């Protein structure tokens, strides 16, 4: 088990006139090597939830919270280990760039881990290769890169720490279709190469449906749905109720079924639909 959380509660600014109960009794567990996507309306508590995974936020109350073998419920949790095991890519991560050169910026994480210099450089170069940033950019200033390049360098800055769990908060927000596909493929490669656990928040439901093994839907600080991708997306009405869009394929299936067709609602990926339709025609 990679992550196991029971009854997590979190309140922002408790005891002030602005207090917000952002999470209420949330259970959240993830298996090793799983690819989980978290969906939910804006303000539903997705970012708050994932920031608990590496101890950036401390629960207001929780029954159990184990992340990669580290118990986060104790008074002084082993932060150093958690931060190494759980890499976190924030929304618009390009804001975190600060070094003079791309290579140095990507080295920041491994250096903080206290690794020897050769290892730091090796990891930085590996990570940059993985995200597809060529050697000619290693000594460029991160501030003179294009938006898409910045994003990739910032992600490399997290991958260079070789986290066992990679958490990404809307990693493809604000990118063009090609840029999105590139980032998603980087994540997928990392997932497969290191059998890493991936936890991704995204509003791009059509992308999510293609990559995720499992879907968790948050609603008003509570977990509303949790299950295999096909299962969750087969509950068309429930998803619409929760204010979510359906993936295009599901939408198509939903509308066709409304017209009296009889297509299994578990079909949510393009490939499956193609197979189903062509299979029926035969």
């Amino acid at each position, binding site marked *: 088990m990679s992550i196991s959380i029971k009854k997590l509660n979190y309140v*922002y*600014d408790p005891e*002030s*006139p*602005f207090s*917000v109960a952002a999470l209420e009794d949330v259970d959240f567990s993830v298996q090793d090597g799983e690819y989980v996507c978290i969906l939910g309306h804006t303000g539903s508590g997705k970012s708050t939830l994932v*920031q608990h995974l*590496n101890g*950036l936020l401390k629960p207001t109350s929780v029954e159990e919270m184990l992340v990669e073998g580290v118990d986060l419920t104790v008074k002084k949790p082993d932060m*150093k280990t958690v*931060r*190494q095991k*759980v*890499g*976190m890519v*924030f929304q618009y*991560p390009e*804001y*975190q*760039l*600060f070094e003079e050169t791309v290579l140095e910026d990507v080295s*920041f*994480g491994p*250096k*903080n*881990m206290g690794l020897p210099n050769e290892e730091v450089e090796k990891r930085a170069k590996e990570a940059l290769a993985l995200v597809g940033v060529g050697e000619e950019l290693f000594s460029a200033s991160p*501030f003179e890169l294009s938006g898409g390049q910045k994003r990739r360098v910032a992600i490399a*800055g*997290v991958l260079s*720490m070789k986290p066992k769990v990679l958490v990404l908060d809307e990693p493809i927000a604000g990118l063009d279709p090609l840029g999105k596909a590139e980032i998603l493929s980087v994540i997928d490669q990392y997932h497969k190469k290191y059998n890493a656990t991936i936890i991704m928040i995204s509003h791009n439901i059509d992308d999510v449906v293609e990559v995720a093994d499992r879907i968790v839907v948050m609603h008003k600080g509570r977990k509303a749905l949790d299950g295999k991708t096909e299962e969750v997306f087969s509950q068309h009405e429930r998803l619409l109720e929760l204010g979510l869009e359906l993936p295009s394929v599901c939408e198509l299936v939903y509308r066709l079924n409304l017209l009296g067709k009889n297509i299994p609602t578990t079909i949510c990926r393009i490939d499956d639909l193609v197979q189903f339709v062509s299979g029926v025609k035969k």
Partner: protein
Amino acid sequence: MKDITLGQYYPVKSPVHSLDPRTKIILTVLLIVFVFISKTFAGLGICALFILLVDFIARIPLKNLLKSLKAIGFIIFFTFLLNLFFFTQGNAVFEYGIIKITDSGITRAVFMAIRLILLIVGAGLLTFTTSPIELTDGLERLFTPLKVIGFPAHEIAMMMSIALRFIPILSEETDKIMKAQSARGAVFDQGKLTKRVKAIVALLIPLLVSAFHRALELANAMEARCYHGGEGRTRLKVLKMTKKDALAFAIMGIFCLIIVVDNLILSKIFLVG
């Protein structure tokens, strides 16, 4: 939501909150002046009662109001000591070497400390009941007459409101960048100095970069919408004095009168400092 927690503003609905900011600014200045000119403990007592009364009407928990003293507790304490040790008139109650504490020294030290506390708390009433935006608005209007002598009232107010607008954004941004760098193993609050300095650089550079970005964007957005300074600009929210403000002025007048009377009569009998 968190945007408005800026400063001390305590957002509840109360008669004090709904006063015109200009009224509150003027009355606060008056209050401060009268705390200053009170010469007796009875006078200070009246000031304290008055502040408590306003605080009660404004529905601000006393706890919060007193919290504003925390930051300057040291200064109050220091003033107290200075007065205690360096005021040498009166009868000595304690002598040791060059240290001499007198009875009027003690009275004076206590008096000064109370006066300082009342000043801070009294001024606090203004910031607790008036949002920063209202404050700038009120100040701009109050200073407008000074435009004739070239005082840039509008420009200063605009700068203040932009600065105020940016504080929550910057603090949010700081929070975000700190989290992002912490996730990369930066440690801000412990460890070797060199490492901490490095962590702070990792925070400051992105913060500056984004602040400049935002400043440029804002300037462009303002120009694109034809901002050209204060000349001929109308306001969305016109400040208006109402009956409530008149009432507030009247109450303040009575309070001032009491202090004056107290100063004239009681101070003859029991004079401090």
